[in-house]
């Protein structure tokens, strides 16, 4: 096939912005086809999915609540992915952080502990997530094991560990033996920003993370070493950036942010620890990281877009009896379109004369 991908000399800035938009339009077209195939009015469906959630202050707050964990985890993942360390186990690190932080909440429950509890919980959450992420990092450095698979397997282990704790030692004694812990004391709950609504201080932490990550990744030596480790590992080694240090570093950051997201979610919207604390945030955050092109601000925008699809999807289920799978098709299509658009912006497809092989 006489086609060839040619890297463009310079990618116009317009192209970089256009790519996600083109992807969005493509997804909308595919979505419209899907809606019609399912027998729904596409305009009404799009309105409910994408526009209505933006018009109500309550749903806007819900978007923030939903985007918060995606944002935190996504930023962490972008550290890893820039360095070509494929951390797929963020879901497990999220759980590990939630467990670590919840331990303190339960240990101080009922005592008249001061306001130090919540910050301490958050720190524990970050530490817990970081430690859980350091396992696949260690296995990679020491044994060369694929971090993709080890981090993924640890997700299941973490979830089962949480299940065991909540059904056993951490069960609420007054809870009729049901698998949930006591409701956290007020000192152990994330403060709300507005009176009516669920938006909590976690988003402030998220925004701080965006700023910090942008600075670190863009302007510090550490950020540079991460970038180099990902794109030119040999050069990085020559420059003296130890590969193992980069691995441990990015996994620790990624795990810490995921763990932080976990404890924030548990201490915030949930308010207690129970077996199901995540509808797959650790995996959806991968999409957020990719959509955001591994840049913290991009991840911020992508998290909100994804949160919008979730909330719109629920609204569609309620108003239009649209199944949840439609949301999944949307997200998958969006990611595919973004990946394709990204390539097409950076490269040109050229017809080549003469015999050329693929």
């Amino acid at each position, binding site marked *: 096939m006489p086609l060839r991908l040619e890297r463009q000399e310079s990618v116009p800035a317009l192209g970089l912005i256009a790519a996600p938009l083109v992807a969005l339009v493509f997804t909308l077209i595919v979505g419209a086809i899907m809606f019609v195939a399912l027998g729904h009015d596409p305009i009404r469906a799009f309105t409910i999915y994408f526009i209505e959630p933006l018009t109500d202050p309550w749903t806007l707050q819900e978007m923030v609540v939903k985007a918060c964990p995606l944002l935190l985890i996504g930023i962490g993942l972008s550290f890893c992915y820039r360095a070509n360390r494929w951390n797929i186990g963020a879901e497990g690190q999220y759980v590990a952080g939630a467990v670590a932080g919840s331990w303190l909440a339960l240990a101080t429950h009922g005592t008249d502990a001061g306001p130090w509890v919540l910050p301490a919980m958050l720190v524990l959450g970050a530490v817990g997530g970081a430690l859980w992420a350091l396992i696949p990092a260690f296995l990679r450095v020491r044994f060369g094991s694929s971090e993709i698979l080890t981090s993924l397997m640890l997700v299941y282990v973490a979830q089962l560990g949480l299940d065991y704790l909540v059904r056993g030692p951490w*069960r609420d004694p007054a809870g009729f033996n*049901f*698998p949930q812990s006591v409701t956290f004391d007020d000192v152990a709950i994330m403060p709300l920003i507005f009176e009516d609504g669920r938006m909590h201080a976690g988003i402030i932490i998220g925004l701080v993370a965006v700023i910090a990550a942008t600075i670190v990744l863009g302007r510090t030596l550490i950020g540079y070493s991460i970038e180099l480790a990902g794109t030119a590992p040999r050069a990085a080694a020559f420059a003296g950036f130890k590969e193992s240090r980069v691995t441990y570093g990015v996994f620790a950051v990624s795990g810490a942010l995921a763990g932080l997201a976990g404890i924030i979610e548990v201490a915030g919207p949930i308010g207690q620890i*129970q077996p*199901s604390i995540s*509808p797959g945030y650790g995996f959806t955050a991968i999409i957020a990281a990719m959509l955001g092109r591994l840049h913290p601000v991009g991840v911020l925008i992508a998290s909100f877009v994804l949160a919008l699809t979730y909330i719109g999807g629920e609204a569609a289920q309620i108003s239009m009896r649209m199944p949840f799978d439609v949301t999944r098709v949307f997200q998958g299509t969006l990611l595919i379109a973004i990946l394709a658009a990204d390539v097409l912006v950076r490269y040109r497809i050229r017809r080549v004369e003469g015999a050329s092989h693929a």
Partner: protein
Amino acid sequence: MRKILSMAVVLAAGLALTGAGQGGAQAAEKLKIGFVYVGPIGDFGWSYQHDQGRKAVEKEFGDKVETTYVENVPEGPDAERVIEQLARAGNKLIFTTSFGFMEPTLKVAKRNPKVNFEHATGFKREKNVATYNAKFHEGRYIIGQIAAKTSKTGTIGYIASFPIPEVISGINSMMLGAQSIRPDMKIKIVWVNSWFDPAKEADAAKALIDQGADIIAQHTDSPAAMQAAESRGVKAFGQSSDMKAFGPNAQLTSIVDDWAPYYIERVQLALDGKWETSNSWHGLDHGEVVMAPYTNMPDDVKALAQATEASIKSGALNPFKGPIYKQDGTLVVKEGEALPDGQILSMNWYIKGIDDKVPGQ
């Protein structure tokens, strides 16, 4: 870009207005009822039966009601949002059909005092939050007796989901029923740690059958175990819905959750303006628990089952009547007395005769 944005806002505003207009005109007429399901209505189990109840409500009240449902709602922060969305969409009576929706329901109920909530299998109530449950263990007693009469190996294979009181009391009730016929009945229990995992349930059924159980009972939602029993030629009891289609030769009976009587009753109260918080725990007598037709068994076993069912319905027989001994031998219920409801609802111990440990103890 700005143009598109402004068009979008106008479009949204227009739709919102028309929506509001519609809502206003009909609010006086129809009662909007919402249902939140933890699983898919196609699980042919727990959520499916709740949806059947919803359909019964629609059939019974026709134009007077408008029902909505959301399925596959995970028990976590998303649940609160979904319930809140239903409340905001104008639903005045909302059924949340899983234990894990308890805290979310309470939180939403606090913010929406004019909306009434019905929470299934929970234990916290408010002025606008009622709880309801069904005495499934009554059905377990009956199938225990059937099992004792039918099993050749004397071993029941029990596929359990999670070690919560409802499941544990179900296991105990079945054994009590079995022991009333055959004191040395045995039981093997496997926990699949899920309400719905067909492959695992099928694996669990096969493992139990391989270990000598020739009667399969389940407290999980899919018909996989029934199918496995059918393919292995052993007998089984269905759960939540009549699973005869999946086990034409295997199913002896099924404990069917029939929420229609309760739902219709509560909707009627709401329509009459007489809805109040309550705690409902009915069983065979009220129709929330229904036994699927007894099949694939000899007539005398059928007669026994029917007689026991009648006794429980009339109140003459209580599955948790004394004497009941715990595994360690302590007498929990004296002869002539019955276990109080509170203890059944919080049960976390096995009766004597079960050679296993309750997980998490």
